[in-house]
């Protein structure tokens, strides 16, 4: 525990007592009858599982915010991609990603993936289903990490929306989630070279969010802007079709973030999980307020979509240091993220990088900021330079991995739907169905 808390002593004492009263066990029955150790293990493990379920809910958040911020003629397509990502993400993680990301002893840069275990008995059960493994079981570990893995590709989905070919997206996203994400993940969380270098990323400002953001940036550059977004040097906004859906999405993501960050404590440690809840919520709220103010000041009007982006920006910002940044500092981290996201969205638009939902700004820009913030506000042995090195290394890797994958797709099967399909919408073009068949089609008047 890095922070000096009021109850620190008590927590430490309780922990010490538990340790003292926890003699080694030789059978599962012995472990289960241990008076303090087993209930503690149950609570820890249960919290990781609840957190995993909360992170799963974030996929619904992504699905709703992305469909809300895009046009109704592409809604089925966006939702389809989101269903695909979680389905593909969990399964590829089982067959390759988990063991590639957490290989144990490895060279620090890359490990081959292998399928997860298929069941434990006897000594294996004792090693994987008890506190011999961690404060949680092997299964809890896998499912919690699997929910994270799919998040990285979901980020890309929003940025490339409304113009990418479904098949090309599915192939590209699979390669990113299955192969690329576990590589950079292993560099830090798998105990690789960045971990050895002292880089810190608590729940993934860089490992998940900046990875997704920069993978998205490369894909968007290859893909080009949506038709009609930049005309004669002017930015023509393309409005999202449902602000209520987008708002539901942002709130669901906020809710899921309690699991994303809170679960990353990797135990139910009362002091630490509570602190993480507080820093996470404070940063998210500060991000929301800051984005509201920034949009009013820089963009003339208090913009709802920016406020939603601001909430998420604050959450992304605190993710790297939610357990080592104090509540008051978390407000600063979140507020800076909230302003950054507005400036980043405007700057990307000026550069004609068309990101319909602001994913590159929320996850890429603020992912880097959050990682650097650990070097500024983090209570512990963190240096700004190491944080910079880590986030730049992983962001660059994600960018080039995505550039290669989507580049290959662009020059083989193609990346973009036809102009006609883009105008008529990907719902009918890719899926042969309308999202709202009983409503009149929207006409851009």
């Amino acid at each position, binding site marked *: 525990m890095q922070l000096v808390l009021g109850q620190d002593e008590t927590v430490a004492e309780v922990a010490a007592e538990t340790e003292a009263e926890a003699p080694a066990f030789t059978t599962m029955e012995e472990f289960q009858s241990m008076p303090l150790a087993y209930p503690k293990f149950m609570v820890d493990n249960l919290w990781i599982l609840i957190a995993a379920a909360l992170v799963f809910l974030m996929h619904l958040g992504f699905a709703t915010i992305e469909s809300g911020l895009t046009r109704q003629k592409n809604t089925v397509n966006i939702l389809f991609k989101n269903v695909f990502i979680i389905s593909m993400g969990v399964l590829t993680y089982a067959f390759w990603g988990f063991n590639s990301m957490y290989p144990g002893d490895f060279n620090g840069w890359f490990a081959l993936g292998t399928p997860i275990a298929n069941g434990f008995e006897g000594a294996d059960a004792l090693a994987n289903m008890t506190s011999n493994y961690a404060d949680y079981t092997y299964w809890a570990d896998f499912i919690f990490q699997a929910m994270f893995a799919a998040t990285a590709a979901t980020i890309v989905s929003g940025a490339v929306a409304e113009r990418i070919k479904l098949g090309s997206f599915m192939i590209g996203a699979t390669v990113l989630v299955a192969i690329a994400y576990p590589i950079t993940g292993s560099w830090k969380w798998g105990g690789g070279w960045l971990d050895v270098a002292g880089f810190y990323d608590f729940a993934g400002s860089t490992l998940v969010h900046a990875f997704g953001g920069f993978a998205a940036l490369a894909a968007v550059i290859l893909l080009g802007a949506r038709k009609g977004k930049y005309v004669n040097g002017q930015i023509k*906004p393309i409005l999202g079709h449902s602000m209520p859906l987008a708002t539901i999405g942002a709130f669901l993501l906020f809710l899921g973030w309690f699991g994303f960050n809170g679960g990353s404590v990797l135990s139910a440690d009362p002091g630490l999980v509570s602190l993480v809840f507080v820093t996470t919520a404070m940063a998210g709220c500060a991000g929301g307020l800051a984005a509201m103010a920034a949009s009013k000041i820089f963009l003339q009007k208090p*913009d709802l979509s*920016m406020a939603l982006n601001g909430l998420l920006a604050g959450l992304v910002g605190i993710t790297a240091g939610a357990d080592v940044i104090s509540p008051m500092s978390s407000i600063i981290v979140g507020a800076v993220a909230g302003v950054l996201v*507005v400036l980043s969205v405007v700057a990307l*638009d000026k550069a004609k990088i068309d990101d319909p939902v602001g994913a590159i700004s929320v996850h890429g820009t603020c992912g880097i900021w959050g990682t650097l913030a650990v070097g500024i506000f983090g209570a512990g042995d963190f240096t700004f330079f190491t944080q910079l090195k880590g986030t730049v290394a992983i962001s660059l890797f994600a960018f080039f991995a995505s550039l290669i994958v989507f580049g290959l797709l662009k020059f083989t099967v193609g990346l973009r739907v036809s102009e006609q399909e883009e105008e008529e919408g990907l719902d009918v073009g890719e899926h042969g169905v309308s999202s709202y068949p009983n409503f009149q089609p929207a006409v851009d*008047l």
Partner: protein
Amino acid sequence: MKKIEAIIKPFKLEEVKESLNEVGVEGMTVTEVKGFGRQKGHTEIYRGSEYTVDFLPKILIQAVVPDERCEAAASAIVKSAKTGKIGDGKVFIYPVEEAVRIRTEEKGEEAL
């Protein structure tokens, strides 16, 4: 028989309907439409970029009335739809050749 077409501000629909009922207009058809007149559209802002909305949402009311009620109906619409600000809309009146009530096949003013 006369057909009255009135383009009004959407939030005025309820008032206009009541005022038409008061002067004895027993039926009408309402359509959500978009358009502009001399006032043109307005600009809105989304994520920092301005765009113009040329076509503003309006309500189009169509009602066919006997000749002697036409004057009263038209002025009821004008009175109830007026805010005094630009964009209040317009009223058009056309002659109607024939009307048929489909259920009973009544014709002319009987059908109204």
